[in-house]
């Protein structure tokens, strides 16, 4: 281990370390622009020049590896002269527009110009000017300010996996931009704003709305996926102005997905509900809390007494906090019903009783980076959980083999070595084929039920992909992972997919994980599922799960944080069930989407409430409110507490959110995907007799009520059009290839949608995204007919 000396301090540093890293670790400051710990070394800004004894000229600290006996001065006269020289060059073309620059006050160039710049520029010539292009709804550009550090370029190329920004031209004519003014569409694009050391790339929604030094900072947790990214919420006069990442090596590193970064724009949306409202004579009336709560109590009590407690059901968004899950289930159960669920998009609940305590990865997030083989089952991990997708990409870049059993050939930012891209109904068969190939390769027996199914001749497993996947799992064993994604969770044969994946994982030694929705792990431990009470205790009588609550409509519903039509698997069924109910109490932060409710209570969003989140690794993260909810809006747990009191439920006296979460034994939390009792349920998803198999998933900017209303995100390319997506050959066969739109028919409904040709959709299938108003009427149909319109 080389021993070096930096500014008189002797340090032992691992061989191969760059000087700048050694200095950073020792807390010694070296100015820099292009160097970033998470990116490759470019050494093109030259700001980190330091003096090294016996070297004839200053050396860039970011690109000079340590050597034994090296004596480095970061602030000697020669080093500072070099740094000042660099600064003078950098400022030659940089405009002196800090007062009108969004980066002003938090700008590395501004800060370092204070330390290394001159008072007056010696450059009397004209500065260069660079054209700006619109690169999308999230990032503003002012490219004249660019100092060509290329951090944004390297981020795209290395981290995000799609190179959208590049450096064109050379010398003084070099400029950073996209190919002929295209937009930057990565789901992680906002990170370039944090990386940009000047004001060239800034946040478009935040632009000119505040100054960095006047913002109040508060910690929060992102509720949109199972990562639980750590946020720094910045607000001014009780209004959230922007969201930045907080470093957390275990969770999000220093990155954020755009969804985490920009969802706050919905918090300030004009659709926010600011007072309680009740419906009388089909009109909405704004009322005070007392009136609204009284109406809710009266309405619920009437149904409970007239039709019995089993007629009450609660549907709660997976983005709710642990406290909200817990209090809502305590309220519902206190009223005598076990009908509560947060798995609003799940179809197959058959293995519920044997499900693990909390769904999740079954391993720390950071070990995903080190996997040697990864099998994705029904997952578009890049878009569904962008920050986990990054870790899969890290593993891929380190040489891992990534494989998939999916029903769309998603654009991943890693290559798939083996893949099954099949219709939804064929997914269990494709996975069974992998299991069969594995059994043959290893010379072991398949479980009886699986063997019977395989030998029925329904499953073809001699293909190279099945053998390839099986071989990789066998080869890498403990260094392999199988991940069940959102499509698997929503699959009609989720239990079968899980059973087969579990058998493969057990036999190969791989880790089995599931990627649950949002804060689902907290929902499970808090008892927001019909078959389990809080802390994983089995309910004596299981209530109805989410789908059952809608199939056979109940007398009264409590909906929490959802747009029922958009958040439930069967939007059409949800609308019908809620409309036919005697009474519906809705907890909602937004005005729209609550047409079926009798009382709507305005709740706080994730930045306005104290709450606890459990991510897919079982990490428990708590945040306080960053701002107050607008108007009369209140944190959900407080409203639930008052409602519990008014309804006379026992033990409902809580003062703080922590009092609530104290009743949940978070220390017990362990996430995983394996069922305690292995059973293969007969697949019930069959190939459609006529028409096409419908593939549906929820695009990343339609996953929850908040994201759906985030204007900036809705304007991106990732907000896919609600359309019927078909491959070209399929469209031609159906004679809809020339059509602009098509009639999508299901039993009892017909919807007109645009046609989009998409080669990623397999034959015999049509992809129709869920979570859009346009596709609600298709409901949970698994097959549809397309007719040219």
């Amino acid at each position, binding site marked *: 281990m080389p021993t070096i000396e930096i500014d008189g301090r002797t340090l032992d540093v691992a061989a191969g370390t760059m000087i700048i890293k050694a200095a950073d670790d020792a807390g010694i400051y070296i100015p820099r622009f292009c160097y970033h710990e998470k990116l490759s070394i470019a050494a093109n800004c030259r700001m980190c020049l330091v003096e090294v004894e016996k070297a004839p000229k200053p050396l860039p600290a970011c690109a000079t590896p340590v050597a034994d006996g090296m004596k480095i001065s970061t602030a000697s006269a020669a080093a500072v002269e070099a740094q000042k020289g660099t600064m003078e060059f950098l400022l030659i073309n940089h405009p002196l527009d800090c007062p009108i620059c969004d980066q002003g006050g938090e700008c590395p160039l501004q800060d370092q110009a204070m330390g290394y710049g001159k008072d007056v520029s010696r450059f009397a010539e004209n500065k260069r000017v660079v054209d700006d292009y619109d690169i999308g709804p999230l990032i503003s550009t002012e490219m004249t300010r660019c100092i060509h550090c290329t951090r944004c370029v390297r981020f795209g190329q290395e981290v995000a996996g799609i190179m959208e920004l590049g450096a*064109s031209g050379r010398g003084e004519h070099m400029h950073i931009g996209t*190919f002929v003014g295209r937009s930057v569409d990565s789901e992680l694009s906002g990170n370039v704003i944090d990386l940009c050391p000047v004001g060239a790339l800034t946040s478009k929604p935040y632009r000119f709305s505040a100054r960095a030094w006047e913002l109040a900072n508060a910690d929060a947790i992102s509720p949109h996926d199972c990562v639980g990214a750590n946020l720094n919420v910045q607000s001014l006069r009780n209004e959230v102005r922007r969201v930045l990442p907080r470093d957390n090596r275990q969770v999000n590193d220093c990155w954020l997905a755009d969804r985490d970064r920009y969802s706050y724009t919905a918090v300030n949306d004009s659709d926010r509900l600011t007072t309680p409202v009740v419906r009388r004579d089909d009109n909405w009336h704004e009322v005070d809390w007392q009136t609204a709560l009284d109406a809710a109590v009266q309405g619920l009590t009437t149904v409970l007494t007239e039709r019995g407690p089993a007629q009450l059901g609660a549907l709660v968004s997976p983005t709710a906090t642990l406290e909200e899950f817990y209090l809502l289930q305590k309220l519902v159960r206190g009223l005598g019903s076990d009908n509560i669920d947060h798995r609003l998009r799940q179809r197959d609940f058959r293995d519920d009783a044997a499900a693990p305590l909390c769904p999740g990865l079954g391993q720390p997030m950071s070990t995903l980076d080190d996997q040697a083989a990864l099998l994705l089952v029904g997952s578009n991990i890049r878009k569904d959980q962008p920050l986990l997708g990054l870790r899969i990409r890290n593993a891929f870049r380190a040489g891992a083999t990534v494989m998939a059993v999916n029903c769309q050939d998603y654009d991943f930012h890693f290559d798939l070595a083996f893949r099954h891209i099949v219709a939804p109904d064929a997914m269990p068969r494709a996975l069974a084929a992998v299991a069969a190939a594995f059994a043959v390769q290893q010379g072991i027996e398949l479980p009886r039920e699986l063997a019977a199914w395989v030998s029925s001749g329904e499953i073809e497993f001699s293909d190279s992909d099945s053998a390839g996947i099986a071989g990789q799992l066998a080869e890498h064993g403990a260094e392999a992972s199988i991940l069940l994604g959102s499509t698997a969770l929503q699959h009609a044969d989720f239990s079968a997919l899980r059973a087969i994946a579990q058998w493969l994982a057990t036999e190969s030694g791989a880790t089995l994980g599931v990627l649950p929705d949002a804060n689902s792990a907290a929902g499970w431990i808090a008892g927001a599922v019909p078959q389990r009470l809080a802390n994983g205790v089995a309910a004596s009588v299981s209530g109805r799960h989410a789908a059952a609550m809608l199939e056979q409509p109940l007398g009264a519903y409590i909906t929490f944080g959802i747009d029922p039509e958009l958040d439930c698997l069967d939007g059409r069924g949800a609308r019908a069930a809620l409309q036919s109910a005697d009474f519906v109490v809705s907890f909602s932060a937004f005005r729209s989407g609550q047409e079926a409710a009798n009382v709507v209570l305005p709740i706080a969003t994730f930045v306005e409430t104290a709450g606890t989140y459990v991510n897919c690794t079982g990490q428990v993260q708590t945040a306080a409110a960053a701002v107050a909810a607008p108007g009369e809006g209140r944190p959900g747990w407080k409203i639930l507490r008052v409602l519990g009191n008014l309804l006379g439920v026992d033990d409902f006296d809580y003062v703080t959110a922590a009092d609530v979460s104290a009743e949940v034994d978070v220390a017990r939390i362990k996430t995983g995907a394996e069922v305690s009792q292995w059973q293969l349920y007969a697949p019930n998803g069959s190939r459609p007799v006529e028409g096409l198999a419908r593939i549906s998933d929820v695009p990343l900017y339609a996953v929850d009520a908040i994201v759906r209303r985030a204007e900036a995100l809705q304007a991106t390319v990732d907000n896919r059009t609600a359309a019927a997506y078909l491959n070209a050959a399929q469209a031609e066969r159906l004679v809809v290839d020339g059509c602009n739109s098509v009639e999508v028919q299901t039993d009892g409904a017909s919807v007109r949608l645009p046609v989009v040709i998409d080669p990623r959709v397999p034959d015999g299938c049509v992809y129709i995204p869920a979570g859009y108003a346009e596709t609600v009427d298709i409901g949970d149909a698994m097959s549809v007919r397309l007719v040219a319109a």
Partner: protein
Amino acid sequence: MLSTHAHAEIDREVSKYPDGRQQAAVMAALRIAQQEKGWLSEEVIEYVAGLLGLEPIQVAEVATFYSMYDLEPVGRHKICVCTNISCMLRGSDDVVAHLQRRLGIKVGQTSADGRFSLRSVECLAACGGAPMMQIGKRYYENLTPASIDEILDGLE
């Protein structure tokens, strides 16, 4: 977009590098495309990117970096006059002035009839014959106004 011949040539270039390193062939591929198309349009750049499995911006970075890739249509004869030090000392300014007068275009422009494009370039490694210019693949050295006229008259 490109002929079978051009595709074959690009494939040959790609095959010179290890599997998965086809990015290394980007300069050759651009040269082949330019030879066939005369210049590199956005469409051609994107097409080459597709051939090599790169993002269009990666190819655009290379195409905009090197001055010998033409990003605008050029005339049938591309006249590149060296204006680097040796040629400058031997009177390349006069060569440029004469060409501009004779062709009626400025450096960087193309004549209205599409016959000539005029460029000033850096050293072409023929200082012994300064001042010099390159037209197509041929070098013309020790230029005088008279010899330039003679050369131009000899071109189609």
